[in-house]
């Protein structure tokens, strides 16, 4: 529109418009969340730190098969239990957290109800000063987070 173009040239109003936008925002509510005093609450489905429940696990190794990066290492052997039947016993259940992409395929593959391995723990603070030991989770660290000092649980969510 010719009128608008003419108006644009002689007035500086586009500049004042821009200034008014930033000027208005000077008084609006600020969106900063001052971590660590204030934290955002993760949602229920948030994919965070792993947790394993050894009793529920039936050692089917489906989670290890489904993992796209093959970072779950499971070893088990057969043992005779109290009733004389064969029972699988876990030797090793390691998750290499350094390479995990938190895709939740392992949790989806787990056939038990409720799941034996789950990520929906609302915990994301797992930083450590050195990588190799702290971010390689063996079965102790997976089942009982006290053994993993770098994990700061938001809430310990037990699958009920």
């Amino acid at each position, binding site marked *: 529109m010719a009128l*608008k173009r003419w*108006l644009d040239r002689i007035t500086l*109003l586009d500049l004042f418009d821009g*200034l008014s*936008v930033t000027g208005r925002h*000077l008084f609006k509510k600020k969106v*900063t969340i001052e971590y660590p005093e204030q934290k955002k609450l993760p949602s229920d489905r948030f994919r965070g730190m792993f947790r394993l429940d050894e009793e529920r696990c039936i050692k089917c190794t489906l989670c290890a098969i489904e993992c796209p990066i093959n970072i779950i290492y499971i070893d088990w052997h057969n043992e005779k239990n109290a009733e004389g039947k064969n029972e699988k016993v876990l030797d090793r259940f390691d998750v290499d957290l350094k390479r995990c992409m938190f895709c939740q395929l392992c949790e989806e593959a787990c056939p038990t109800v409720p799941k034996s391995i789950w990520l929906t723990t609302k915990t994301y603070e797992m930083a450590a000063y050195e990588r190799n030991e702290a971010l390689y989770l063996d079965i102790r660290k997976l089942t009982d987070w006290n053994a993993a000092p770098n994990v700061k649980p938001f809430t310990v969510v037990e699958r009920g």
Partner: protein
Amino acid sequence: MNLPPEFWTYLKVVLLVATVPAIVGFVIVLAERRIMGFMQVRLGPNRVGPQGTLQGLADLLKLVTKEDITPARAERAVHFLSPVLAVIPALTALAVIPFGPPIRIGKQMVPLWVADLNIGLLFLLAITSIGVYGIILGGWSSNNKYSLLGGLRSAAQLVSYEVPMGLSLVSVLLMTRSLSLVEIVRRQESTHLWFVFPGLVAFFIYFVSGVAETNRNPFDLPEAESELVSGFNTEYSGVKFAFFFLGEYTGMIVISCIAVTVFFGGWLPPFSHVPALAFLGFVPGAVWFLLKVAFFIFCYIWFRSTFPRYRFDQLMALGWKWLIPISLANILAVAFAILLTPRRTNGLVALSWIYGGLFVMMFLLSKLRRALVRRDRLAASGPAEAGAEV
């Protein structure tokens, strides 16, 4: 006891040199980061002291303890001296600026300026031109062709924008017939007319040139971070970088102080001649001066957070093709207004009304323009989206 006037001069110089860098480092840097943050709906730095007040100290400590690097084949002496050359002119320019009316200390009247040169404005323009040396030599002495380019571009920008700055101040000169800054403030007092009103166009040109003079957004291409190089101060670290930084911010203060003194009445409270508002005179003149300067620094920060930056050729075109002709025309208009009613201010008052009227008309045109924009946007988004349906 009667202290000799030299004592007061030296004391004022010491106070200026001691406090202005401190104010820059502690107040302006923090204010810029906090205010820019607030305009960007976030909090700025607020961790270091209460509400972040010690952030300047943290920055200062960081810069001072950094390793001082001089590039291998750089000219050591020039590399060492160019930050100094960038700071000293800016600090020196503060010598002629009147910060307030003379105050009574003991039995003496002590003026709140270091020196009242009768060529004050000319001195200021000259001193800021020397500041350009710091930038050119800084860029050249780094032995880095990109720094050199950045420094040369910056210098070209500074030199080009001094012309409209000077010309807009000339139009004020016509109103006061004196270059002395104290005289300019006194004239504004006696004619009851702040020179921003007849010199509205001059003020805008002056402030835009001032922003360009200090390499600030929207004219900060020579030192922008997203360009290929960081400009002339790429190879400087530590205290030398702190000096360049200090020089830039002190330049901001100087430009704001000049704008306040020349256009906004210096230390005068608003409406100083209206008896009903005489209570405003209870606030000391120096405080009024500081408030006005603070407002201009806020404008600097406001510009930085709002506008994109000009490309270098567009920047030069703006200065040479637009600002200079407009400032020349403005000189003619002011001269005409003065000649209409010599020895009286009526001509200038009439000019102020004309400029004010134009400004108001611009605002009314903006409403029209915004209506046109909204109509265009609705037409472009499709017929179904009428009003705020989405």
